[in-house]
């Protein structure tokens, strides 16, 4: 319990540090969010007026304190409405409010925008994580079992291709072959119905998962080769257990520890790394949102993306730690 509490405190500190650094870096950049709101050709007076409307004429420390005070605060248990100046841009969890302000560009609450976008990116990231785990574990096990045979060489060769190819090239290739030529999937987008969402998800999930699948293949192969050389495997075989049962029930189970570690960390990485995939496939998630927010210098949205992404990474790391406790008795015993 103490260990868990320590991890939670550490996670909170990491979140605060990440958000604070992001805030400072975002504001230290030599750019003018008010100009980006007004448009490149707006006259200086219009830019100045918008700067005041956005509160960007305040000193940075004032903006920072205001940001932190608003980020998590207590408030009435229900939001009065969009016109409520105090809590109109809050997401409320009972009395606890999270307020990231309003997007400079869209003028909508950032929490509303993130509530639309984050589930899509999480869906994409989880699907990609499953894709890469399925492909990677299967290919890695086959490669280990067929060590130094054709299947092994093919798996290793393809995994090297997978880790070497840039994501956007893989995306464009899949788009061209499976959407343009074969018409199996939509070229891009998110669709309007559940069926369309599912069809639209396939190519971006595979694109996002290719690198990880290739990487998993290498890891699982190495781990499995190590496990298959242990005495307990020979013993199990000597007792008459079938090869498949030995591989799946014994060796693979023992090889899962690093896979679990990577799987947990990968979800966070995939959320953060979905930027290119989302842009290529026009997937309306956090990745494409953060790219556009950076290009527009939309500070509240940038900070919202940082909060969500860092929260996912921190929580997935926590989940990995807890998974260790469940999977490995040695960790439970401390």
């Amino acid at each position, binding site marked *: 319990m103490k260990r868990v509490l320590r991890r939670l405190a550490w996670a909170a500190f990491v979140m605060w540090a990440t958000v604070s650094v992001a805030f400072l870096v975002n504001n230290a950049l030599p750019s003018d969010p008010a100009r980006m709101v007004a448009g490149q050709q707006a006259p200086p007076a219009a830019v100045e007026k918008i700067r005041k409307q956005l509160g960007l004429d305040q000193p940075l420390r004032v903006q920072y304190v205001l940001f932190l005070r608003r980020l998590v605060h207590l408030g009435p248990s229900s939001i009065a409405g969009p016109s409520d100046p105090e809590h109109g841009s809050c997401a409320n969890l009972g009395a606890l409010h999270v307020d990231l302000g309003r997007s400079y560009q*869209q003028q909508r609450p950032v929490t509303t925008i993130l509530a639309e976008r984050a589930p899509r990116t999480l869906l994409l990231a989880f699907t990609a994580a499953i894709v890469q785990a399925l492909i990677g574990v299967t290919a890695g096990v086959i490669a280990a079992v067929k060590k130094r045979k054709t299947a092994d060489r093919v798996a290793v060769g393809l995994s090297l291709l997978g880790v070497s190819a840039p994501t956007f090239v893989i995306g464009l290739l899949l788009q061209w072959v499976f959407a343009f030529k074969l018409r199996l999937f939509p070229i891009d987008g998110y669709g309007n119905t559940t069926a369309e969402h599912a069809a639209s998800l396939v190519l971006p999930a595979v694109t996002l998962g290719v690198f990880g699948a290739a990487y998993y293949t290498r890891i699982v192969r190495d781990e499995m080769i190590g496990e298959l050389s242990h005495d307990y495997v020979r013993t199990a075989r000597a007792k008459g257990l079938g090869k498949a049962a030995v591989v799946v029930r014994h060796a693979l189970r023992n090889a899962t520890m690093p896979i679990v570690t*990577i799987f947990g960390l990968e979800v966070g990485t995939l959320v953060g790394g979905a930027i290119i995939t989302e842009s290529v496939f026009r997937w309306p998630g956090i990745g494409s949102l953060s790219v556009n927010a950076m290009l527009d210098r939309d500070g509240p949205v940038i900070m919202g993306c940082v909060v969500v992404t860092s929260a996912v990474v921190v929580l997935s790391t926590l989940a990995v730690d807890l998974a260790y406790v469940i999977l490995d008795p040695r960790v439970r015993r401390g």
Partner: protein
Amino acid sequence: MRSTRGRAEAPRGLVAATLALALALAFAPACSEKLPAPIPSASPEGAAPKRGGVLELATFGDVRSLDPANITDGLAPQIIEQVFAGLVDYDKDGTIQPDIAERWVIADEGKTYRFFLREGVRFHDGEEVTADDVKRSVERALHGSARNPAASYYSSIVGFDALDAKEAESLPGVVVEGRYVVAFHLSKRDATFLRVLAMLPLRPVCKSGGARTSASWHPCGAGPFKLPPNGWQRGQQLTVVRHDGYFRPGLPHLDGVRWTLHQNQSSQTFKFMRGDLDIVRDFATPELLRFQADPRWKPFATYDEAHQILGEAMNVQIPPFDNVEIRRAVAAGIDRDALRRIRASNLTATNQLVPPGVFGHDTDLHGQRSDYEAALEHMRRAGYPYDPVTKTGGWPHVIPYLVYKQGLQEFMGQVLAQQLEKIGLRIEIRIVNYPTFIALRGRRDATAFGPGFWLQDFPDALSFLEPIFHSKMIADEGTNNWSFYKNPRIDDLIDRAHEELDDERRKKLYSEAQEILTDDAPWAFSQNFRFYTQRQGYVRDHHSHPMWMHELKRTWLDRAAGPVAGRAIFSEKGLAALLGTDVRR
């Protein structure tokens, strides 16, 4: 864990070669493949327009707001134009034409504009458009609480300053003189008034728009199309549907228009070739050249008139550009034709500020000329002679040249550096992202040199002269006068032109100003940018529009066949089809 991510254990070269081969094999058919033929029209030329169909467009950009009082992106105008009708509007040639106002009278020596509205014009909510709605919409758009970057264009309306400063709640300069008559009183004559009125910010909005702007308002106007309740899926697509109560009988022909947002160029081209997009403007250059070279597509292609100027903006407050001879050397030393060839499909070389598609362009202007010998002479007069044989002399310091990443100007900067080196000016290209570039260029004493570019806000030379070269636009932060150029003669000519209602006399003032800018060279004017539009053969009566990109009121669809589906292998058998998804969308 025994291995670390990203560690390659096989020869990298082998992997790279294999990958390159795989990609080459994969993409080779795409590159060498012949373009599909345009999908033809079902009816012959001259056939009567048919009603129906949804026009499919796509864009790499996104829409931030559809409130005419808050336009801050380049895409919104073409959509807002479809949703909101104005008192006056631009036709496809850029000429002012009546819209909700059937006529107008200019009185009081050009200081009063009286508009007579058509009767029976309906908003999308069914309410009639009246003079009260006009006044309310104008005050809503110009009130200081509105985030309206274009508000200052209307500063000549009596009472503007107080409303803008939130010291007043109404605009005495806009007077309702009857249910269908509204007058605008100006504090001074304003030659641009009709032109800026034909822009979007003051377009009448439904009563649901209220007296002040609100981010939660559902856009509602009196234009030919209306935004349905779920028509805008932010970041994904936006669909408008026909307004059956539109005041022009029989129009529009289309059932609707759909914009796919955030779509990259390659996806747009794929979809266009499949027949899933009807019109494309965002071409990657190689694809654009393929379409241009194909005679089957030529009848369905148009180039816009140029409304954008590209050049090199020199900060006259920072050495060496405080020396007019150095600026003249740059203006003469750049090879405009060589720069044009960087993107010959979109660029045309120019020697003056005002583009050909804008009132005030002067075909007789001598302008700035590329002349290498003259450039060397200007360097000599500046006191920094350069010997091209020994490659000695010239300005002794390296000049930073600020440019933003991945823009056309980044590539042009590379060529520019080579050209200027030949006259003794060595520049160092510094690449930053776009927001940083804009911020630094508009900051006093921050940058000496970099690309300048400007797109018309309205088709008149004042839309270029005033923001870029009038000294009143200079500010420590956020100026568009990137040269920090201050010339009382230019200021005077611009101010006089602003009040000169006679087109011929105003044009002479513009020419005089352009002569001064040619000689003073705060910019080296270099190129005009023209957009290329490719449409399918079945898109009828479509025209590029100088202000709104597309003229869609009279556009109709007459598709003779389905998409090029015959080319697909598994068009009806894919996973999406099994899931009940239309993959052609």
